[in-house]
């Protein structure tokens, strides 16, 4: 079971609490986790990555195990702690005013 922590506005949009849990088939990567997240919560499509290009939206960042994974390949395996459910994947909005 993969754990994902969402920023406040996306929790409101998806009508969930701070943490959601997902079943991910195959290798656990940013792409496979986001695919599973969007499949379960379609209202989040386009809010984390662009609908057309699938690029991470520029003001969002991905962290896990106290590491910034934002610039890793979306197909790189996430840390074992995330794959095992011990640690969550954090999706965080950049602090840039607003």
């Amino acid at each position, binding site marked *: 079971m993969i754990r994902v922590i969402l920023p406040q*506005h996306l929790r409101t949009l998806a009508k969930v609490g701070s943490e959601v849990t997902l079943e991910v088939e195959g290798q656990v990567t940013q792409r496979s986790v986001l695919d599973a997240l969007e499949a379960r919560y379609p209202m989040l499509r386009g*809010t984390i990555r662009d609908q057309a290009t699938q690029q991470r939206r520029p003001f969002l960042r991905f962290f896990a195990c106290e590491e910034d994974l934002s610039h890793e390949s979306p197909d790189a395996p996430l840390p074992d702690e995330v794959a095992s459910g011990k640690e969550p994947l954090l999706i965080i909005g950049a602090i840039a005013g607003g």
Partner: protein
Amino acid sequence: MSKVRVLVGTRKGAFILTSDGKREKWDVSGPHFAGWEIYHVKGSPADPNRLYASQTSGWFGQIIQRSDDGGKTWLQPGTPAGQPAAPGPPKSESNKFVYDTSAESGKPLTTHQWYDGTQHQWEFKRVWHLEPSLTDPDTVYAGIEDAALFRSTDGAQNWQELSGLRGHGTGPNWQPGAGGMCLHTIILDPSDPQRMFIAISAAGAFRTDDGGKTWKPINRGLRSQYIPDPNAEIGHCVHHVAMHPSRPGVLFMQKHWDVMRSDDAGDNWKEISGNLPTDFGFVIDVHAHEPETIYVVPIKSDGEHYVHEGKLRVYRSRTGGNEWEALTKGLPQKDCYVNVLRDAMAIDSLDKCGVYFGTTGGQVYASTDAGDSWAPIVRDLPSVLSVEVQTLA
């Protein structure tokens, strides 16, 4: 008894203001979509309970919201209301705005002019304006940034670009205005379902006479000192256009500078700024029952986006332009430095018609006597981006 419903989009959420036909006591509902920028909320003329809202964020992108009960509850089209969809293929495509790059459109449609004159790739940023069909509640048009026109025919679940607009040939010369390269005005002609007008900052106004397949620029007579050729066919920063439904060939325009009028559906324009203290501004609108009575809110200049001389004044012309009177009763006449943005004025169809506008200072003002006097409905909302009104039976 008649009712009115005022739909307000702000920088931090949407608000719905309702009153009976007297328009004296108001109920304020909101914020809806708290914390998000709501660029526009508009109701369907064919079904007043059908509302569409553009919810947007620099962080999280674009969301389209729809209400089928006059704003009491909302849903993202395609997702069951109030619950997550079951596992499986995503059902919601309602925020998917993908530019048409198909061969059928006949153009690569890949770049427009950037601020520095170089070519820049088209990138979807947000929906500025939602214009529901006059006859079908499930059909709605979206004006987006970077400028393009999209249409949904299934209640905003799926969107397709009307790519003939960007593909007609002048697209590479369009450039962003200060607020971005946005398609902000969509006017549907009630007498001709094939005719539609749109406007883009900073490209100009365009018209289709075949339901959106082909388009032509309609900017003859506009003159803009800030572009290399002041009389160019393309490049004018049109801020807003208004039309009275009884006279769809007559258009009124607030350009960056200059208030303009066309009597031939945009083919030719003439200036009607007349005695305005400044002819820079954003909003322009037409009286519900007098098609020669129009309203603007003059703004000091393009470098100083606030009202002139610290006075919030609506100007009304009863002669279709040129002769303007200041409407000040009930509006602050000193130390006022707010702006009124392009989609932030609306007019109801009661008798006497109500005029509404919202400011960047968070006030929404209403006049129940066609502008003679004003009072705030609310004073302290977040900065107002848009105001629409529905007159309900």
